[in-house]
């Protein structure tokens, strides 16, 4: 079972449907036990960092997420979900993030229109399992004004240009995180979810 963590942020319907497209059993939940018992976790989200953390804390989900991650449960962070994994963000300096990835979320330079919305390319730096079947420079759909920058540069597996070059795909042990929206990125995006399911279940296709 894959649990999509529902803390009240964003378009969970599309995330769920993208997973179900491959026949995965999915629950969308805001209950700690569903997070602790999941085979795989998706941390989705659209919105502001401080607001997202506040909702996670109000629903008392931070401990369950950290606990599951410590036990090695694969987690895919999407968009704001990527950013919440970090320690802090320029968007909400007074709020602490989950702190699972060491580093900070920074604002994109404002010489180009923000948010950065639309189809942009991901240059693959390291060919990790989440990229299986995806070519470097493939297009994905982005909607964001901030990006996560890990202290350990080795965690950055994909990068994208928008005024600056920023990390768009991050990998740390059992944690995968993408700044774009795979559920809105057509065929290539669906491959990300398929690859995540393969990571969770091994290549056993009964999800």
């Amino acid at each position, binding site marked *: 079972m894959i649990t999509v963590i529902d803390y009240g942020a964003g*378009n969970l319907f599309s995330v769920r449907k993208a997973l179900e497209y491959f026949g995965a059993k999915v629950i969308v939940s805001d209950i700690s036990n569903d997070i602790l018992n999941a085979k795989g976790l998706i941390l989705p989200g659209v919105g502001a960092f401080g607001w997202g953390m506040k909702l996670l804390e109000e629903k008392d989900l931070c401990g369950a997420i950290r606990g599951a991650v410590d036990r090695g449960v694969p987690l895919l962070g999407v968009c704001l979900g990527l950013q919440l994994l970090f320690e802090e963000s320029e968007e909400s300096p007074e709020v602490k993030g989950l702190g699972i990835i060491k580093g900070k979320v920074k604002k994109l330079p404002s010489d180009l229109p923000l*948010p950065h919305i639309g*189809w942009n390319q991901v240059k693959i730096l390291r060919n990790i399992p989440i990229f299986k079947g995806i070519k470097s420079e493939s297009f994905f759909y982005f909607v964001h004004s901030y990006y996560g920058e890990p202290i350990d540069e080795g965690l950055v597996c994909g990068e994208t240009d*928008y005024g600056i070059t920023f990390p768009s795909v991050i990998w740390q042990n059992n944690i995968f995180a993408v700044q774009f929206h795979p559920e*809105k990125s*057509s065929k290539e995006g669906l491959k990300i979810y398929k690859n995540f399911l393969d990571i969770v279940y091994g290549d056993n296709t009964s999800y």
Partner: protein
Amino acid sequence: MLTKRIIPCLDVKDGRVVKGTHFIALKDAGDPVELAEYYDKEGADELVFLDITASLEKRRTIVELVKRTASKVFIPFTVGGGIGSIEEIKEILRSGADKVSINTQAVKNPSLIREASKVFGSQCIVIAIDAKWDKDMRGWRVYINGGTTPTNLEAVSWAKEVESLGAGEILLTSIDADGTQQGYDITLTRAVAEAVNIPVIASGGAGNLEHIRDALKEGKASAALIASLLHYKKYTVREIKEYLKKEGISVRL
């Protein structure tokens, strides 16, 4: 690099496509979801559903359509047509749409733009502007109610105002050019695109590939909305994009 976008527009009424039912390859060419899936596979960057349903069942049919689309189509899509309240916007976005497009109600109640962009984020809020050249105004007059009712607004200044109220994008239709297949109104498109810092989607008048190129290059639009050119299969999305790429425009292929 951020690409220019090609956006097919589907007119729907009572949950059915009203134009572009000429796709013999589809099982049910009147089904907007099947047509949407087809355009996704062809390489469309986004989709717009324009709901022209007038019945009392409007809301239920559009929400059902949005849910069915979001289950099968994995590119961003926008829903427009008669949307006028925060409640309606919430229901449509929750059902899986990425953006809503607001036209008449934005003119009647501009504070809706501010409120909606605050609640849902600017990226969800597209303001549709229908404009027509007006000699007396020496500018483009904004029309509402499906292009039938003139207002006192001038399109370029209205565009700036909706940007300042929090609109994330402008869907700009030239009433003069719409349906003519003689090309987009490049002057209007460029005037608006240069006046604002948010993306402008050019709409109305596409008759050939050069028209689309001109809207994106000279017109400085970020995206081109295309209806009949695609629905009557004059070109496929792929053909359009291959042409644009040859012309030096960055597209997703």
